[in-house]
Every structure is written in C-alpha cells, then in structure tokens.
C-alpha cells in the first residue's frame, strides 16, 4: 500500500477499516461510560464524605492515575484466562475483555479528578446548601450537574487515555483480525510488518477522530454554557 492508502481506504469506505474504527469507538465509549459511572460515584463519595482512611484512599487513587496499561492488561489477562479465577466467563480475547481493561485503566483517573472538582464545588456551595437544607442525595446530584462542564472534560480525558492505549488491549484482546483489532493495535501491527506509511496514516486517522470527538464536546459545552451558565 502506498502512502495515501489508509485515507483512500477510509474515503472509499473500506469495510475492514471502518469496522476497526467502529470497534475502537465502541470499546472505548463503553469503557468510558462504565468508568464514568463508577469513577464519578467514587469521586463524589470521596469528596462529600469523611471516614477513617479516606486520605489514604485519595492518595492511592491519585497514584493509580499513573497505572501502566501493560500492568492492567496483564492483571486482566491473568484474571480472565481459562486458568484464572474468571476463566469460566470465557471473556479473554473478546471486545468485552478490552472494555474491562480500559475501564480499570481510566476509572481511577475519572474518580481522582472528579473528586477534586466536586470537592472544590462543595467548598463553594456548602454554606448555601446547608442554609437551604438540601437533602444528601439532592446535594450530590446538584454538585454533579453544576460541575458538569468540568466533569465532561474529565470524561474526555478518560476517553482519550482509553482510546490511545495499546498495551492492555493487545494483551487481553489478542489483536484478532475482524474481532478485537482496534486502531492502536492495528498501528502496532502495521509497524511490525514494516508498513510504516500505513501505520502513520492510521495514526493520523486516530488523531483526527480524537480531534473530532473533542471538537464536538467543545461545541456542546459552548452551546450549553451560553444557555445554562
């Protein structure tokens, strides 16, 4: 394939390439959604409650933001392997395994960053909410909603990290053609086949997709800032 081939493939709607792009987005979106729910809940919990060991948990969470993807991949691999504790699920080398790995990878990021944001919002809102007698569950909802722009940025950071990740999905997904092959593992594969031009154009497509996702989020944010403050 010559230098422009990846772009030609995408322009001509090459089904294989489109399937790879679709799978990448599906896996990463699913992971971001699940990690978003888990991470935001955990972040809100840590921001709004006091309990012994909380400080330690916050530090641990911050440290886990730097979790090496390969380690996550290896741990998920060992857990999901037929010889591992969750082997009976038969999830190794499936897209679900990749979702699990990416979820584990980005949940700490979302939790740690959202804890900080929600804590800052809480510091600002605390007196007002106490004066208004806002019940507990309503407080959490209001804080999450009012912090939504910052939280969306955090989700995007998680999405970006998951989408850019190759080590973990390679190990747990197996880079199986047409089944678990995503953008990043394709890039790694084409590089190892010495097809550097194809690898780099796949890379550019990945960057372009990330750019579009972020531009879209930015647009939505601009629109809603204008309409909701």
């Amino acid at each position, binding site marked *: 394939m010559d230098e422009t081939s990846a772009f030609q493939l995408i322009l001509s709607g090459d089904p294989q390439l489109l399937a790879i792009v679709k799978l990448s987005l*599906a896996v990463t*979106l*699913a992971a971001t*959604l*699940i990690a*978003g*729910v888990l991470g935001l809940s955990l972040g809100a919990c840590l921001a709004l409650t006091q309990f012994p060991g909380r400080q330690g948990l916050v530090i641990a969470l911050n440290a886990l933001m730097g979790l090496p993807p390969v380690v996550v991949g290896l741990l998920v691999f060992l857990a999901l*392997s*037929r*010889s*591992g504790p969750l*082997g009976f699920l*038969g999830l*190794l*080398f*499936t*897209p*679900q395994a990749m*979702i699990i790995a990416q979820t584990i990878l980005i949940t700490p990021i979302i939790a740690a960053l959202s804890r900080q944001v929600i804590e800052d919002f809480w510091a600002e809102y605390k007196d007002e909410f106490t004066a208004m007698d806002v019940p507990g569950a309503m407080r959490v*909802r209001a804080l999450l909603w009012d912090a939504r722009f910052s939280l969306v940025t955090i989700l995007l950071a998680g999405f970006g990290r998951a989408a850019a990740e190759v080590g973990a999905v390679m190990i747990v997904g*197996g*880079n*199986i*053609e047409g*089944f*678990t092959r995503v953008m990043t593992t394709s890039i790694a*594969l084409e*590089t*190892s*086949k*010495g*097809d*550097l031009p194809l690898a780099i154009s796949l890379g550019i497509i990945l960057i372009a997709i990330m750019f579009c996702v972020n531009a879209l989020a930015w647009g939505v944010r601009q629109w809603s800032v204008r309409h909701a403050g």
Partner: protein
Amino acid sequence: MKAYALAIALGAFAFAASPAVAQQQSIVVASTTSTQDSGLFGHILPLFKTASGIDVKVVAQGTGQALETGRRGDADVVFVHAKPQEEKFVADGYGVKRFNVMYNDFVLIGPKSDPAKVRGGKDIIAALKSVQASAAPFVSRGDKSGTHSAELALWKAAGLDPASAKAPWYREIGQGMGAALNTSGAMGAYVLSDRATWLSFKNKDALELLVEGDARLFNQYGIILVNPARHPSVKVTAGQAFIDWIISKPGQDSINGYKINGAQLFFANADNAAR
C-alpha cells in the same frame, strides 16, 4: 439521575452487544507473528471459513507465548514453529497430538554494507562466526519465539554463546519479527528472520538477504489441538476440523498457493497430504 441511569444502560448494552459475534462457531488459534505478519492467514482462513463455516480467531504471538496461551487454555489450537518445544507441550499433556503442516526457512538478513562480509554464503555457521569476529551489531528476538530458539541453536552449533557472554554487539530486543527487522534496519544490524516475514516486510530499505540455503536453516511448522482433558473449554470439534483441513489436500494446496510477487512463502509438508 436519568443521565446516570442512561449511562449505565448504555455501558451495559455496549458491553453485551458483541457476544452476538462470539456465539457463532469460532475457535481461537494461538500462532506466531510470522504466519500472521506474512499474510498467510489472510489467504487461507477465508478458504477454511467457506469450507467449514468456522471462524478462526488468530492471536499472533511468539511461539513461546503461543504455547503458554495454549497451556493456560486460552486457545483451542496452537500453530507454531519450534519442534522441541511443541513435543514437550504434547508430552506434558497440554496438547493432544502434533502434526507437521509446512515449512519454510530462516535467512540471515543484514545491512547492505555487510561489515562481516557474509554476503552470498551458504554456511550459516561460518556466517555467524564472521559476524561475531567483526563485532557488527546483531539483533536477537530475545522473546522465546520459534525464531529465537532457532537462532540460539545456531549459535550453539557455532560454538558461540553471545547471549550469556553479554557481548555488546548482541542486542536482545524481546519483540516480534517485524519489530526486530525494523530495529535491525535502524541500527545496521544482522538478524535471523523467517523467509515469509522477510518477503512480506515492507521497510527493507537498508537491509538485504545475505545468507540462505543452509539445511540447518530449515523451519518446520506444527499444529496441535489443546488437550480438552486439561481444559474442558477447548472446542474440540471445531479445532480438530481446522487441523484436519489444514493437513488435508485443500488446506495444503492453499498454503502452497500463497505467494508474494510470485515467490512462495511456505511449503506444505503434512505427513498425510499426499493422499
């Protein structure tokens, strides 16, 4: 809160959406980077799928890792190229039976400048000795793959042991064949490669095939069904169907029919193929 519930529902849906694919009949084959990177699977698997309706999911790893994947029960079939390791795999009870499938050969690749002056030689042992004598860089896979085992055996036959000696010109990179070729090209190093990966490799720039044709460079591929007695999850019927097909005449013909620029990459040699 509605958005919250929606997120959970969407995540769960996306998570559950893919098994539809997994449920159709499929097997996992742990194989080597050489068979995948050379494009062989891209050529033969569609033929098998047409013949049997079975999807083959290939996880391409080094031979050592592929056998480990089989030992853990994470693959139904292993398709690799390191006969002694394969025989041990079967002897240890992890595999049912080993079948010869095909062969190709290893070749010594090196920089066009050829500082060790090995170009055109037919004696791989002499070539390796020259490389050692010139102290020109040599890239080793270093990943317990079939090619890595073959390379170590050749050094041993030459009476040399640069890996243990930690010779500065001997560089283990712990990566696949393609990565080893990329690295060799970048540092002007010699490297042992299987012929199929070399022929399909696209970043040859500064590299050249220097030594080939030695009988000691023979590279045999074998296929083994993972033992269901150890791992009940192994899909015996479908896995055995793949093995039966690949050593049958249609399977063997399809291997022989795979060519890049007119050059045949693998030579089928299953024991019963003549039938």
